């Protein structure tokens, strides 16, 4: 058993795949940090140190610092992918997709489809999601529901170091554009992560806990909030089936529907906003295909429909917490 951080797990997946396949390249702003300066070459290793050490092993032909020009370098990554490389490109904060939205949703997502399946875009976009650092609403959003809207993109929301390594490995090997959403509050979380390469298939929800009273579906960091809530509830005699979909496209609808069939109750915990999000998407799925099994209304535990405030006390109120999940479950169980 080897305890590793989420950060190390991602780094290992990158190293593992770059060693395994010479077509894998890495690009983004400061992925090495220090290009062109006369100081250290790999001074930073990514804005949060995730890609540290890759430059020295793989060289500047495969680890490329880019200017601040997301539309340009993500477009270039798409082109390189279509031409046979497997670029892993760092979009830093997912909020920055605003400046390269066209490249991501009109180019990467549709390159294969609109050209009748002639090509593929084996591209991985790593990007940070999540609130909790008091850095306000242009650096704290969770936009995976936006990406999930677009057919042609695959969207991953790993909630643990083990999942991060396995899913990133699958993402790099996958032949489609994949958005890999790293929650910035998880980078220091540790877990047992094998040294070997391994891959986790897309579209398989992780079942973290088995119970018969309620189904809780939680995504990304909210998985940990829900886990804690489930432990509190278990002490009250309420046993939850806790599912982490891990990938929002493809979505493991079967596991969610099966679980709700057994429990009759559904609570969804999502850090993305309440409108047009994964919580509403999953609620709609169960309302359409699992209505007959429901014994209580579906409850979504999400932030309110507001931008994210920087003030620490307000941000804490914005992010769903254990108490809100516990309360929601009690409500559906008592219904």
């Amino acid at each position: 058993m080897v305890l590793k951080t989420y950060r190390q797990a991602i780094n290992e997946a990158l190293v593992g795949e770059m060693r395994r396949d010479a077509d894998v390249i890495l690009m983004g702003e400061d992925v090495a940090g220090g290009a062109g300066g006369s100081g250290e070459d790999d001074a930073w290793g990514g804005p949060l140190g995730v890609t540290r050490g890759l430059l020295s092993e793989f060289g500047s032909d495969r680890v490329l610092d880019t200017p601040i020009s997301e539309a340009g370098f993500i477009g270039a990554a798409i082109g390189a992918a279509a031409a046979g490389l497997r670029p892993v490109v760092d979009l830093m904060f997912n909020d920055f997709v605003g400046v390269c939205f066209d490249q991501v949703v009109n180019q990467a997502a549709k390159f294969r489809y609109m050209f009748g399946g002639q090509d593929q875009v084996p591209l991985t976009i790593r990007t940070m999601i999540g609130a909790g650092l008091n850095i306000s609403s242009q650096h704290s959003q969770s936009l995976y529901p936006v990406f999930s809207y677009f057919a042609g993109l695959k969207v991953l929301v790993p909630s643990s170091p083990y999942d991060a390594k396995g899913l990133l490995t699958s993402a790099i090997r996958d032949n489609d554009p994949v958005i890999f959403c790293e929650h910035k509050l998880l980078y220091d979380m540790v877990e047992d992560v094998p040294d070997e390469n391994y891959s986790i298939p897309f579209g398989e929800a992780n079942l973290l806990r088995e119970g018969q009273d309620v189904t809780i579906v939680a995504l990304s960091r909210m998985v940990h909030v829900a886990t804690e809530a489930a432990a509190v509830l278990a002490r009250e005699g309420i046993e939850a089936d806790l599912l982490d979909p891990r990938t929002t496209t493809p979505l493991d609808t079967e596991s969610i529907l099966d679980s709700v069939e057994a429990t009759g109750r559904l609570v969804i915990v999502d850090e993305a906003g309440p409108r047009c999000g994964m919580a509403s998407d999953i609620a709609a799925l169960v309302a359409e295909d699992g209505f007959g099994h429901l014994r209580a209304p579906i409850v979504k535990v999400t932030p309110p429909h507001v931008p994210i405030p920087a003030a620490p006390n307000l941000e804490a109120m914005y992010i769903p917490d254990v108490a809100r999940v516990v309360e929601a479950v009690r409500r559906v169980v008592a219904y």
Partner: protein
Amino acid sequence: MAIDLNTADPEALRRRLALRDDPVQRYRRLVEIRAAEERIREFHASGQAWGTTHCADGQEAVAVGLAAAAPPTDLFWVAHRVHAIGLALGCTLESVFAENLGRTTGSVGGIGGSFHLTDVGVGLIHSFTIIGTQIAQALGGAFASQVLDSDRVTVAVFGDGATNIGVFHEALNLASLWKAPVVFVLENNHYAEFTHVDAVSTVTPLARRADSYGIPWQVVDGQDVEAVTSATTSALEHARGGAGPTLLEMSTYRYLGHSRSDPAAYRPEGEAEVWHERDPIKVEAARLRALNVVSDADLSAIDESVANEIAAAADAAFSAPKPPLSAMFTNVWAPEPAP
């Protein structure tokens, strides 16, 4: 509904006007900015503030020179490294400290944080964390001046990193076509986050890019308040007179890392020391001494009075309340239009 530009905090407005014709006040503001950022770093280091913060140590002359040159009716759209320019434009120490600490008396009530300072009353429209956004927005402000037939000039302040993003080029093209009353201020501190400017562009000086859009440009000594003030004054008048935009490249240097977590290991040994020799505070002190405007005792007195003000402002910021829950839901939407 347009924003109301007449809501200046009287104290902030006084602070802004104080720089206009008073070199001693400019010197004092340089000192104040340096000390205030040091205090802000203490907030973070001690865990009283968290999130991140971007300091401008070494770049104070650019901030103070811009504020000294521009009348308070001109509007600034600036980058995330905003404490210096915010304080130069007049934001009070307390409002900057409180915003870093997430208090209601912060410049945006604690909702924005360190890098989103705003005080429209003194012309600080907003500070931006999405690189380059302010360049297009300032152009829009200039366009508004044209439509409204105002003699207001807008200023976009951005870093060297922003000159590679598309919106910089898009905005320069439009500004040139429209002869917009805007001044583009490229604050070249030589590093975009951790990457040296030479690694991400093949053109030197960067300002030469303006040629491709038919815009005049100039490289300015960003360590010297007087040089910045004088170049900016000309550019503002050029724009105000209807002659269109100018790109000013302020050559300066960031003493510290990109953000509070950055030790700046990517820089070569000795590089910072060279710039320290031309520290903007040193340069200005030497000038004032040479002109016999101040004595050494005056300079010490300034240091002391700044320190006292900072201590008082920090105390005030700490004693201000944290925002109530209702603040989270305020200003999501503009008020309903009047019937």
